C-alpha cells in the first residue's frame, strides 16, 4: 500500500504547521471583514483568499511553480499591477474639484505628515528589542499613512518586499476604518462654529482645463521628482484617457476590464505574501500599530491645515475638509460630508472634500517619489 501511504503523506492534516493554520485564520478574518463589514471588499476578499491558498501545506500554490508565485512574479515584482490600478484610478477620478480650487492641494500636502511621522515612529521602534527596521523598511511602512493602496504596494514592492503583505493589509484595513478613526479626531480639533461653515459653490471647470491638468501635474513631476513618474505618469495617463473624450473605448477598458482583472490578481498576489514566516512576527504588530498612528496623525495635520486656511481666508474654508487630505478616496470625503452634516443639516461638503481627497492621492505619490529617490536610489 505504498500509494495509500503517499496519499496520507500528502494530506494537509499530516503536514499542517501552526503558523499556516494561523495565517489561514487571518485570511478568513480578512474575508469576514470584507463580506460582513464591507471593509474594502474589492481588495481584502482576494487578499484573504490568497492568504488561505498560499498557506495550504503541500500544495505550494505560492511557491516556485505555483500559480500565485507566477502572478506575484509577473505583476508585483515588476510593479506593473499597482501601476495599472493607478491608471484605472486616474480614469475613474474626476479632478474637477481640485482644479476648481487648487488651494486644497495644501490640505493634501499637510495630511502627508502622517507618512513622515510614521517613518520616525518606525525607526524609533528599533529601540524596542526585537525590532530591526532599516530605513527602507521604515519608508515602506510609513507609506501606509498615505492611505492609498496601490502606492503602498508599489513602494513596498520596491523597498521592502518581505513586509509587503503586512503593509498592504494594514493600508487597506485602515482605509476601511476611516469612518471610525477620523470623526473623533475631526471633532476634537474643530469647534462647532468651524464645522458649520458653508463653503461657496465651486466654479465650473472647462474641458480644456481638465485636459491640461494631467500634463501640468506630469510636467512638474518630470522636472522635480522623476522617481514618482511611474505612479503619477500612469495616474495622469488614465485621467487623460478619461478627459480626452476621443478614446472612449480605451477609457472604458481602463475603468473596467483592466482594473477589475488586475484587482483580482493583485489581491491574490498580495495574499500570497501573507506567509507565516514573514507575517507572524513582532514586526507585523509594529506595522499595524504604526499604521493606525499614521492615519490619526495624517487626519490631524490635515484638519489643522484646514484651520490655518480657514483663518487665512477669513472663514471661507471649513476645516473639516482637511481630513479628506489623507486620500482614502472617496471614503474620507464621505466622512467629511457626514461629520459636516451633523453640525449643519444643509451643508453638503462632499464636493469640497473631493479636492483635498484627490490632492491626497497626488500628495502621497509625491511622498513615495521622495522616499524612492532618497532611500531606494
Amino acid at each position: 500500500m505504498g500509494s495509500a501511504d503517499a496519499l496520507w503523506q500528502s494530506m494537509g492534516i499530516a503536514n499542517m504547521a501552526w503558523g499556516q493554520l494561523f495565517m489561514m485564520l487571518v485570511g478568513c478574518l480578512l474575508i469576514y471583514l470584507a463580506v460582513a463589514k464591507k471593509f474594502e471588499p474589492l481588495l481584502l476578499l482576494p487578499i484573504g483568499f490568497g492568504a488561505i491558498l498560499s498557506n495550504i501545506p503541500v500544495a505550494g500554490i505560492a511557491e516556485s511553480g505555483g500559480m500565485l508565485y507566477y502572478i506575484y512574479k509577473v505583476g508585483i515584482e515588476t510593479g506593473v499591477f499597482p501601476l495599472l490600478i493607478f491608471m484605472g484610478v486616474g480614469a475613474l477620478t474626476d479632478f474637477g474639484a481640485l482644479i476648481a480650487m487648487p488651494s486644497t492641494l495644501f490640505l493634501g500636502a499637510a495630511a502627508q505628515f502622517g507618512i513622515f511621522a510614521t517613518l520616525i515612529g518606525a525607526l524609533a521602534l528599533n529601540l524596542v528589542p526585537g525590532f530591526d527596521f532599516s530605513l527602507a523598511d521604515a519608508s515602506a511602512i510609513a507609506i501606509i499613512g498615505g492611505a492609498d493602496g496601490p502606492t503602498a504596494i508599489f513602494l513596498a514592492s520596491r523597498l521592502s518586499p518581505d513586509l509587503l503583505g503586512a503593509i498592504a493589509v494594514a493600508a487597506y484595513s485602515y482605509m476601511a476604518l476611516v469612518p471610525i478613526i477620523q470623526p473623533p479626531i475631526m471633532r476634537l480639533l474643530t469647534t462647532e462654529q468651524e464645522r458649520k461653515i458653508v463653503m461657496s459653490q465651486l466654479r465650473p471647470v472647462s474641458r480644456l482645463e481638465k485636459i491640461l491638468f494631467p500634463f501640468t501635474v506630469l510636467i512638474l513631476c518630470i522636472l522635480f521628482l522623476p522617481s514618482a513618474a511611474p505612479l503619477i505618469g500612469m495616474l495622469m495617463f488614465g485621467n487623460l484617457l478619461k478627459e480626452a473624450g476621443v478614446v472612449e473605448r480605451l477609457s472604458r477598458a481602463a475603468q473596467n476590464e483592466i482594473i477589475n482583472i488586475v484587482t483580482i490578481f493583485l489581491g491574490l498576489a498580495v495574499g500570497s505574501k501573507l506567509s507565516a514566516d514573514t507575517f507572524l512576527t513582532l514586526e507585523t504588530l509594529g506595522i499595524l500599530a504604526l499604521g493606525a498612528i499614521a492615519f490619526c496623525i495624517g487626519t490631524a495635520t490635515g484638519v489643522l491645515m484646514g484651520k490655518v486656511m480657514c483663518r487665512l481666508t477669513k472663514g471661507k474654508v471649513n476645516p473639516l475638509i482637511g481630513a479628506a487630505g489623507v486620500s482614502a478616496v472617496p471614503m474620507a470625503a464621505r466622512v467629511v460630508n457626514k461629520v459636516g452634516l451633523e453640525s449643519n443639516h444643509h451643508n453638503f461638503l462632499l464636493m469640497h472634500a473631493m479636492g483635498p481627497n484627490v490632492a491626497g492621492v497626488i500628495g502621497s505619490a509625491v511622498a513615495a517619489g521622495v522616499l524612492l529617490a532618497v532611500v531606494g536610489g
Partner: protein
Amino acid sequence: MQVSELMIEGVNLMLLGMGSVFLFLSILVLALSGVARLSNRFATDDDRDSSRPPTATPRAATESEEIIAVITAAISRYRQR
C-alpha cells in the same frame, strides 16, 4: 547603523519629504492657477459648458433609440385599437 544615526537620517528625511511635498504641491497650485487663467482666455463657449453630462457612448445612444422606437410602436399600436 545605530538607532540614533537612523533617527537622525529619519528626521532629515522627514524634513526633506514634507518640504518636497509642500514645495511640489505649492508649485502645482501656482501652475494650476496659471493654466486656469490661460484656458479661460482660450476657452470657447462650447468648452466652458462642462455642466452637460458626459457624452453618451454610441451604444447607449443606439439603445435609447431602440427604446424610443419600441415605445413609438407600442403607442401607435395602442392608438389603433
